[in-house]
């Protein structure tokens, strides 16, 4: 199962989907779009970090997507 983790005040909210299950993919895609609309930045990540990349479109094949609140300089 692939997963999307949205960082928030509870630690994070987790959403999982099976890339073969259209309903789950659609639900995850809708959530992705909602969070992007709220200003979250999406990163497709892998353990180790070498292949992490920012994404603007939902990728159902991504094993883990982390949604990060917008980052700014202090």
């Amino acid at each position: 199962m692939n997963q999307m983790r949205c960082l928030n005040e509870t630690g994070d909210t987790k959403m999982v989907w099976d890339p073969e299950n259209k309903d789950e993919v659609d639900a995850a895609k809708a959530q992705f779009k909602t969070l992007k609309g709220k200003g979250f930045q999406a990163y497709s990540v892998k353990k180790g970090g070498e292949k992490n990349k920012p994404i603007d479109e939902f990728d159902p094949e991504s094993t883990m997507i982390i949604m990060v609140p917008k980052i700014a300089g202090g």
Partner: protein
Amino acid sequence: MATYSTDSAWTDWSGTCTASSGTVWVTWTSDNSGTTSTAADGTWKYWTSQETIYGTVTISGENVWTSWETQAAETREQKRARLAQDAINAEKIKDVEANRKAAELTAQELLKDLISEDEMKTYLKTGRIIVRGNKHDYILAKGYQAKVVKVPKGKIVDLSSYRGKVDGVDYCVHPIDQHKLPDTDKIIAMKVALESEEDRIMKMANSRGNIELDLSRAA
């Protein structure tokens, strides 16, 4: 009768009073008419009846007089309401603390999925992780605002075994509304952002100048 200012009444009086402990309050009430509407004879009785009804209050030194006046000025209903509100507030604070702790543990579970077991051990011990960007390495340190220190690439091979100091540049860059996030979420946010888009993130970052980071001590 001696005259004492409100703030230092008890200290001044107790400093000069020679009454023995058994009669100290009798002496106090006969020496002081008090500033409340209660007459001298009833002063201590009035105060103790207030405190007996609503529980024990521990007040030290010169705060005694000030506190007494404040308490005495309240009606019983006001005091009951105040104490009830204090109890509600204490419960709320307890809930907030419990939620914050649970959130931090959840964040640590996610971080565990993103770094090696050894790196996680180091993080739990020191509050630090090392992040490898394309151009530079960064040491992130846990705190109200995650500390982001740029260090020369390759200088630190293993954060758990590195001992001593390292020169770096301290940057201010963080998720907006960071105070809402548990500390470890701030670390995760900066880690994935720096690994994924170092140039864009560092363009936003504000330098706070050079820093010598002592890695022999915990964060």
